[in-house]
């Protein structure tokens, strides 16, 4: 277990280092200039040179890579080109909003989808199973930004029940501001996870140990929750780990539509503005999140499945 964790940490560091180095190379390959993005025609050649020097863009690529990783080891991610604020501050003040959005989206999706998937499997081919199947495929097919705009129009504009934009201040306010974005982001996952759980459950419910449990006269509820679900949920846990990366991409649209703060919109804006230090800092954090999420999903799998534990 500990060896496994150590391996994952080393692998994670390698992934982050490769991703950041690759990003630095791409930054050099892509045309564009932060001074121009910042000031347009008012960007004088002197100011552009000054800004390039300040960002280290006038130095050879190798020096830039070494400087970046040297700074990283000292906990210094550089400074936002425009506001001159430390990148770490800029990134970490946005990060909680994206994390809460992703967590709430996935949690409510799991909370709804797992029972739906179980129920569909237990009532296979019933009317309800078929109805759930149709709705699930529909929710998977509708892109989250379409869902976001529709939800915003219905619940914020037409009905006026929920706020249209922002992230709110204070715990309750933030929860209220999360309802629509999390709904829009999680709804597709309800369909996806419910289908996945259903398929896994059907497979598990047909296995020998389940038949054995039935022959012992255990209740169906006990069989499903105690024996089938812990195994049927394993693929879902793996998918959720990988899905964090997908959710980070979806978060960009959701953050823009709901004018929410967040790391997705931050990185997109930074790329557009060629605000390279923020791009690097943001990418560093998102890579870290993805590595952590996949590791966590492996660990949860191991906790749930003794066979997986043995492989660690």
């Amino acid at each position, binding site marked *: 277990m500990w060896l496994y964790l150590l391996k994952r940490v080393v692998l994670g560091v390698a992934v982050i280092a490769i991703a950041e180095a690759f990003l630095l190379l791409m930054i050099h390959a892509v045309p564009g200039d932060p001074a121009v993005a910042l000031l347009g025609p008012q960007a004088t050649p002197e*100011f552009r040179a000054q800004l390039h020097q300040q960002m280290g863009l006038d130095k050879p690529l190798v020096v830039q890579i070494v400087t970046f990783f040297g700074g990283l080891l000292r906990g210094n991610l550089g400074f936002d080109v425009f506001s001159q*604020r430390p990148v770490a501050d800029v990134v970490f003040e946005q990060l909680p909003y994206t994390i809460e959005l992703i967590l709430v989206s996935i949690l409510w999706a799991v909370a709804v989808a797992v029972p739906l998937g179980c129920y569909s499997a237990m009532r296979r081919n019933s009317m309800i199973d078929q109805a759930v199947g149709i709705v699930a495929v529909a929710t998977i097919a509708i892109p989250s930004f379409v869902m976001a705009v529709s939800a915003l129009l219905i619940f*914020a504009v*037409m009905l006026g029940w929920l706020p249209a934009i922002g992230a709110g201040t204070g715990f309750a*306010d933030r929860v209220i501001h999360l309802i629509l974005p999390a709904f829009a982001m999680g709804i597709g996952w309800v369909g996806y996870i419910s289908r996945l759980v259903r398929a896994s459950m059907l497979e598990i419910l047909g296995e020998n140990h389940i038949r054995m449990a039935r022959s012992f006269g255990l209740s169906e509820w006990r069989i499903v929750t105690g024996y089938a679900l812990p195994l049927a949920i394993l693929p879902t846990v793996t998918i959720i780990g990988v899905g964090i990366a997908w959710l980070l991409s979806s978060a960009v649209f959701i953050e*823009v539509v709901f004018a929410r703060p967040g790391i997705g919109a931050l990185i997109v804006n930074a790329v557009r503005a*060629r605000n390279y230090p923020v791009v690097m800092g943001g990418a560093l954090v998102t890579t870290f999140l993805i590595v952590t999420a996949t590791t966590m999903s492996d660990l949860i799998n191991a906790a749930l499945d003794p066979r997986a534990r043995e492989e660690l």
Partner: protein
Amino acid sequence: MNNIASGISRRSFLKTGAALGGGVIAAGMPLSQVIWAAEGKLLKVRSMEDINKLDPGFYNNSQNVDVMNCIYSKLTRYKPGSEWGWELEAAEKIEQVDPTHIRFRLKKGFKFTGGYGEMTAKDVKFSFERAIKFNSPVKVDWGSLDHVEIEDDYTGVIVHKTPFVPLWYITLPFGAGHIMSEDAVIKATGDGNDFGMTPPAFSGPYLLAEWKPKQYVHLTRNPDWSGPKPGFDEIRIIPISDPKSAERAYQAGDVDFTWVSLDSLASFRKNPPADTKIEQHPSIQYHWIGINVDHPKLKDINVRKAIQWAINVPQILDVAYAGEAAVATGTIAPGLVGHRDKALVPPEGDLTKAREFLEKAGVSDLTLTISVESADAALAQAVQAQLSQIGIALTVDVQESGSFWTLGMESEGERWKELQLFFTYFNSVPDPHYATVYFVSDQVGIWNWQRFRSERYDELSAKAATVSDPGERATMYYEMQDLMEESGAFRFITNGSTPLMYRTTQMQAATRPDGRPLYNDFGPA
């Protein structure tokens, strides 16, 4: 169903939800101004971007200046209304003594917060000279500023090396004109350099109470402010970059003032939200199609003129501006000195004339490329269709914005050599200098991507910035725009349009003629 639903307010919905949730939410629910409709004198407005610089000596966009206007003072300020004008703010008097000297006298009693005392001529000198001292990008706003002389505590003289007329409209009443406390800035920075996002002292009608990045800027009244009392106790400026989201936020009541996108304007006019006033202001941007005169395919002026005459501007405005923007007659927008009544090439163009120019050039089977930002692809397709009518096959090259903005720059590689046609626009300021200065010969390969060169133009550009007589100045700018057009390197499209809407039950909005908000002048309903 609809009636029942519409009868449930956000407040009752949330309270019901909270009660159903076991009172957990209700117990901790702050009746936040973000959620609830404006109560009291709170002004809730949208900005297009978040702020990223509050040092006026280094400002970089209008969103920052909108906030600076509220928290700092300047010698002069823009007058709200439909015509460009300025009035005194911190200055009791200001006059042009001679072409290079401007004398000002400060009002007494303008105080800096934080115990930094009264605003004096020493602070003015410090604030204006630091842009030059630290080679700020804002120093271009000061033209040939040499120094500021202090005559006494309240009086000083702004001294230029050569006359610089744009100062009155782009510098003193705008970003760079804000006056900071020398003591406060030195204490905060050590040397007086850029203090970024942490203002060391305020001197305007409002204080910066809170800035939540990407969420809002919250301003509250400055108790030390001795000028005219602004109409609202608090201002909350909410950055919403997506125009459609901003419109939805307005409809939902989350903001009470926003700009409207051109393609939504007709629908809002037809079905305006309740208690809403929609205004459409002329913008001071300039949008044009540029033609690289150095490209081998475009060296012949007849080819360029053929393109100019083949382009039908009103059609383009219908396609790309929802028919809501007016035709441009040049780079200088309506309302500014030097705006021409009409262009040399009529807006609709003339295909017969275009074909004649092409015949004169002896060119056939011409294939060209137009480079545009991704947002302008529809416009490029319209031009493609128009040029096809005279036998020019136009390829549309769509570029991501960061890449697009360096296309014509010699310092950014060799791409400028391949550049043929491009569509772009520049934001501007209310003086004709900045609508023309980027096309002088010195700017070739920097911002003059047309690579247009004219000695006469250069001479007029330098001279027009020093002439204070509006009539004489206007004549020079007319000629400059004629020269641009005669070169065949420009097809002027529009100066843009700035529609906005606000809730009349909440406010009386006040803007510059181009629709830029002047929050200090907003009044309650």
